[in-house]
């Protein structure tokens, strides 16, 4: 084993090297600065190689959060049920929200599932980096694992909330339509969108802590700004200010891909129609852009995570 010395200094017998700090320049040579550039594909490959970590982190969180609760995982069942009961009680009276042939409870539940996944992933994933400082400072797996683990955890809860959906369908005697087989496509769009926003947001929060307050505002406003309790079709003819029966759906879809995603779930699964392809296409492109931009931002900002947090 050798300790190499790059700088001038005295060498004493026995391999001891002494250095004179005063000979050091004030800053490193300009060319030697470390630039953190990781191509996204390389990054994705690295994350995939360490996917076990995502599972471990998610498992840890699930275990830890339900260990203290007497009801345990029962809460993951109970909270969507209570929410949908509330929504049905309040909004089923609003005639404008009704769609022919579909019970309102089911209609709202599908929207709520899509939305809950996104808002859960975004709020818990968004704070995952600042919440994991202890681990972040000591281990060296890809940093994406923290927000991705939160997304995985949220997927589990969404999966669990399928149970009340099944019960609700059985109670109402409702059979899903065959078009439900399109679902994986919608799920991919939603995942890309959620991943992009969560990754980007979680890295920004490290630098601008105030954003952690903003995230709860975004999720509570988003619940009403996204077609969760109202039908997406409401946007097809908007009359407001200078707008006269304008179809806002394409613009909306680009801004918030969740709109077409929820709408497509309802059209296929509940109504037996095919998705609105042009709008869904816009949503797919938009979700992809969200993902690329959010992920790139994350990779750019991850250099300072350990320094700042």
């Amino acid at each position: 084993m050798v300790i190499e010395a790059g700088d001038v200094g005295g060498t004493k017998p026995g391999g001891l090297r002494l250095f004179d700090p005063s000979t050091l320049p004030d800053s490193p040579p300009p060319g030697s600065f470390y630039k953190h550039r990781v191509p996204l594909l390389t990054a994705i490959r690295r994350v995939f190689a360490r996917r076990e970590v995502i599972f471990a982190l998610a498992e840890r969180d699930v275990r830890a959060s339900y260990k203290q609760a007497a009801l345990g995982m029962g809460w993951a069942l109970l909270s969507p049920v209570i929410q949908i009961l509330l929504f049905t009680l309040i909004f089923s009276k609003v005639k404008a929200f009704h769609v022919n042939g579909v019970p309102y409870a089911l209609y709202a539940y599908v929207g709520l599932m899509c939305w809950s996944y996104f808002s859960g992933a975004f709020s818990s994933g968004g704070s995952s980096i600042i919440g994991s400082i202890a681990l972040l400072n000591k281990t060296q797996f890809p940093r994406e694992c923290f927000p991705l683990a939160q997304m995985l955890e949220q997927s589990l809860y969404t999966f669990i909330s399928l149970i009340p959906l099944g019960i609700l369908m059985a109670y109402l005697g409702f059979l899903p339509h065959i078009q439900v087989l399109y679902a994986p496509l919608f799920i991919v769009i939603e995942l890309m969108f959620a991943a992009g926003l969560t990754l980007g947001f979680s890295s920004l929060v490290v630098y601008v802590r105030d954003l952690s307050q903003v995230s709860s505002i975004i999720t509570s406003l988003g619940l009403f700004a996204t077609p969760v309790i109202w039908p997406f079709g409401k946007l097809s003819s908007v009359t407001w200010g200078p707008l006269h029966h304008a179809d806002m759906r394409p613009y909306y879809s680009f801004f918030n891909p969740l709109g077409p995603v929820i709408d497509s779930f309802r059209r296929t699964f509940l109504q037996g129609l095919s998705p609105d392809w042009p709008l869904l296409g816009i949503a797919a492109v938009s979700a992809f852009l969200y993902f690329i931009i959010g992920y790139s931002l994350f990779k750019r900002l991850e250099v300072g995570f350990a320094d700042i947090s």
Partner: protein
Amino acid sequence: MENVWKRFRADRGKPRLNDQLAKIGGRLRGKEREWRWVLKDVNLDVEPGGTVGLIGINGSGKSTLLKVISHTMYQTAGRCETFGRIGALLEVKGGIHPLLSGRENIYMYGTILGLTRKQIAARFDAIVEFAEVSEAIDRQVKYYSSGMQVRLGFAIASHLDVDILLIDEVLAVGDANFQQKCLRRISEVVAEGTTLLFVSHDLAAVEATCDQALWLTEAVVRAAGPTGEVLAQYRGSIEENAALVAPADEKGMRVLKVEVTGLGGGPATSAHDAQARLVLSTPDAGRAEFVIGISQGTAMPIFVIRHEMSYPAGDFELRCTLQSLPVPRGHYSMWLASIDPRDRRPHHAWQPVGSFDVFGPGTVRPPQGVLVLSPVYVEASWDLS
């Protein structure tokens, strides 16, 4: 690791809006950000299986260096490459989740370090046994005593077959028994071919585990090389600093000269009688209890001797014969205090007053992983029948 530099933002003011805006304004006008360098041009090349101790006072950059090596932080400039799996024990409880049981923590941490469940299961019993938590393994870690948590943390990190083990000042916690156990475990791991980087203020621990050492002061490498020689340099500097920070007594007793020689002149030699001569100066005559101590490196003396005597006003010479000087070859510091026997107030506060060399046989290096408290020379004769 080549020419690594690391800086932090020194201008970490309040994150308030007006401060931030002022800062952005300043940067727009072309003002450079203020930086504080915590590592300057550090070079370190460790072959697989090597052991390096990092020493230096608080804030000299040791921990940051480990973080850069473990890739949890990115260097500002330079290159840093490592090969193999890194296990970092940067803080004993690091990565241990208080709400999970000991068992869950072991699996969880193992996975994070990159082991499969099967590999962890194979080491599970050894970890539990080392940590001495077998009866509590399914209890939540928050109900563990802090000693148990520390043991579990160390057990996990040291049993996971890493290629590079980074240890940052973790042996300070835990009782003496556990420290000894940790050192033994570290030696075992090193013997298996793991590369070790060890940060500690416990110089004896560094000496016991590392072949090479790196001494950092204020972001800069001051010395590098074989552990013994680097430690000697470091110890010398600590004593210089101790003398600097010692309070100056204007009115009390002053030390004019310190000399330690062999009894008949010539250099002081191990296991031979030596004489210490101190020339002191004092405004008033009186009576004092003189305490003399000899130290090497740390502020902890190897031994102290004391004697009560009357002394005259003005300059006088205090002579003390040390019979059969019990220290090996090396550079030592002499500490002096003189205390008023009536009110126990010092005429001269406890501080180093000079240094001297001892000639003779050198220290015997203890077996790997064994701590020697302070260098004492004992003449011994051996026999075998």
